[in-house]
C-alpha cells in the first residue's frame, strides 16, 4: 500500500508524479487485466498472469452471451433500468415542482419525510419489501396462481423508482427553486395552465438537473444487485445477478474465460457512458454531494 507523502512536494515533482501515477496504475491494471483475460483460451490461464493471449479468443463471449445467458440478462437489465427511470421521473418531476413552488398544508412534514428518506438505505428494507410482496402474492393467489409481484421486472423497476424518490426530488426541487419565477408569471399571463407551465416552461429549463438525476439513477439501477437478487428469485435475472451466478458457477467449473467475458459485458456499457459524460457526472456529484 502506498503511504501518504507527508513531506509534500519538497523532494520535487518527480516523487508526487510517481505516487499519483502509481496509484492510478493500481486502479487501471485490474480492469485492463480483466479486459485482456476475457480473450484468453482456457489453457492460457495457467502460468504467468502477465502473458498476452496468443489470439482473440472470442468464443468466451459467445459462451457468456449464449451459454451463460448474459444476453438475456442484459435485455432484462435494460428494460428494468429504463422503466425505473420512466417511473421515477414521472412521479418525481411534478412532486419536486410542487414542493419547490407551492404552499400547501403539511408541506413541512413532506419535506422532513423526504429528507429522512435520503438516509434510509435500501439494504435495510429489502427484507420487509420482499415479505410484503410475498404477502400480496399470497392474497392474490386466486387471480394470479403463479404470483404477480415477485419475479416481475416492472415491480422491480417500481421499487427502484420508489427508493430513489427522496434523492430525485431533493435535487430537482433545489434546481426548480433556483429558476426565477418571472418565467412562470409570464406564462400565466399568456393563459397557460398550471400543468402546461410545469411541463412546457419549467421542465425544459430544468434539463441540467434532470440529466444529472437520470445519470445517477441509471448507475444506481444498473449496478444494483441486492434488490434484484431478492425480488427476481426466478429465471429472469438482471445482469448483475447473472454475473454473480457466473462467479459461483466458475468456482465449480473452472472455466474462467466465460466469467471474464461476462465481466466485460457488464463493465463496457458503464465505462462507455462514463467516458462520454464524465465531466457532467463529476460536476453533478460535486454540486449535489451525492453518495454514488
Amino acid at each position, binding site marked *: 500500500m502506498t503511504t501518504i507523502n507527508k513531506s509534500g512536494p519538497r523532494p520535487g*515533482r518527480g516523487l508526487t508524479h510517481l505516487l499519483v501515477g502509481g496509484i492510478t496504475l493500481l486502479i487501471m491494471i485490474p*480492469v485492463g487485466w480483466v479486459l485482456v483475460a476475457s480473450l484468453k483460451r482456457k489453457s492460457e490461464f495457467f502460468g504467468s498472469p502477465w502473458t498476452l493471449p496468443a489470439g482473440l479468443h472470442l468464443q468466451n463471449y459467445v459462451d457468456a452471451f449464449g451459454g451463460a445467458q448474459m444476453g438475456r440478462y442484459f435485455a432484462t437489465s435494460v428494460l428494468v433500468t429504463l422503466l425505473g427511470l420512466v417511473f421515477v421521473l414521472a412521479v418525481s418531476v411534478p412532486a419536486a415542482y*410542487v414542493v419547490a413552488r407551492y404552499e*400547501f398544508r403539511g408541506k413541512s412534514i413532506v419535506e422532513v419525510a423526504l429528507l429522512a428518506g435520503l438516509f434510509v438505505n435500501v439494504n435495510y428494507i429489502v427484507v420487509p419489501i420482499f415479505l*410484503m410482496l410475498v404477502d400480496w402474492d399470497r392474497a392474490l393467489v386466486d387471480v394470479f396462481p403463479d404470483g404477480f409481484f415477485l419475479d416481475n421486472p416492472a415491480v422491480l423497476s417500481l421499487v427502484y423508482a420508489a427508493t430513489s424518490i*427522496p434523492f430525485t426530488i431533493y435535487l430537482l426541487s433545489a434546481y426548480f427553486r433556483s429558476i426565477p*419565477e418571472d418565467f412562470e*408569471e409570464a406564462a400565466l399571463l399568456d393563459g397557460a395552465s398550471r400543468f402546461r407551465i410545469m411541463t412546457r416552461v419549467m421542465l425544459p429549463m430544468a434539463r441540467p438537473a434532470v440529466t444529472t438525476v437520470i445519470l445517477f439513477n441509471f448507475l444506481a439501477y444498473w449496478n444494483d444487485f441486492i434488490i434484484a437478487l431478492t425480488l427476481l428469485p426466478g429465471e429472469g435475472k438482471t445482469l448483475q445477478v447473472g454475473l454473480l451466478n457466473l462467479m459461483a458457477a466458475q468456482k465449480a467449473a473452472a472455466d474462467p474465460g466465460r466469467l471474464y467475458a461476462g465481466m466485460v459485458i457488464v463493465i463496457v456499457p458503464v465505462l462507455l457512458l462514463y467516458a462520454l459524460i464524465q465531466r457532467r457526472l*463529476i460536476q453533478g456529484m460535486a454540486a449535489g*454531494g451525492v453518495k454514488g
Partner: protein
Amino acid sequence: MTTTLTPPTPGASKPAPGRSPTSRRGTAARGRRGDGRFVAICLLPALALFALFMIWPTVSVFRMSLYTWSGFSAQMRFVGLDNFSKLIDDEQFLRAFQNTVALLVVVTVVTMGMGLFLAAVMTRQKLRGHTFYRFVLYIPNVLSVVVIAAIFSAVYDQENGLLNGTLRALSLDGLQQVWLGDQKLVLYSVAIAMLWQSLGYYMVIYMSSMASIPEELYEASALDGAAATRQFFAVTLPLIWQNLRTTLTFFILSAVNLSFVLVRAMTGGGPDGASEVLLSYMYKQAYTNSAYGYGMAIGVVIFAFSFLVSLLVSRATRREPLQF
C-alpha cells in the same frame, strides 16, 4: 446536504395556503383556485410510492424486531426486547460487529488520507495529466459492486490470480497467500477492495471543495514562507473542514453498506465468519436461518449504531465554520 431545503422566496404575491380558493391576488403560479387539486395530483403518486416502499418497510423493520417469526407461517409471536438481549450473547454477531468497526476505522483513515493527499496534489500542483488521473481514479465508482467483487476475486484467486501469479512470476512464491481463504487476511483483502472502490470518489469531492479556496490565501501564506505541507495543514484543511465532516458521515454509511455488498458478493462472510459484517449477518439470519424477527433486530442495531456514530463524530469534529 440539508442547506438547500429552504422555503422558496416569495415572489410578487404572498404565498397563500393551497386550500383557500379565495386568494386570487397576484400573478405568481400559486394561490389560484384549484391549486389544492393540482398539488394533490402532482404530489400523491410520489408520496404513495415513497410511503409504500420506503416508509412502511422502515416501520416494519422496527416492528418485526419485537417478534419471533420464521417467515411464511402465520405464527408471529410478540417477544418484546428478547431478540435484542439474545444479541448480546451471540458471538457471531459480536464478531460481525467487530469486523464492521474495524473496516470502518481502517478504511476511513486510509481512504481519507490518500484522498486528501491526491486531491491536494492535483489541485495545488496543477499536475500535468491531472484530468486523466481523475478520469481513471473515478472509474471504480461507476462500476457495480458485483463487478468489483468479481475483479478482486480474480485478483486474489489462489491459483491463477493476478496477485499470486505475479508473485510466482517474480519467484517470490513464499509470499503467496490464500487472500480470501485465510481468516487473518480476509478482512484486509476486503478493506483493500473498499479502498480501491471509493478512493476516487472522495478525491473528487475533496478536489471540488479545495478548488473553491481563493488563490490569494495561498499566495499570502507563501509570502509568509509557508511550504506546501504547512499550507495544506494551515490553509487547506481548516477551509474544507465542513466538507470533511460531511464525508465522514458518508464513510460511516458506506462502511456499513459497501462492506456488506462486497462481502455478500466476494466471500459470503467466510471463511468461518471471518469476514462477516453486520448487514451480511442480518441477511443470513433473515433468509438462511428464517429468523426474520432476529434479523430485523440486528437491522435496528445497525441503524442505531450508524446513526449514533455519525452524531458523535459530527459533535466531536464541530468547529467554528471559517469563511473565505
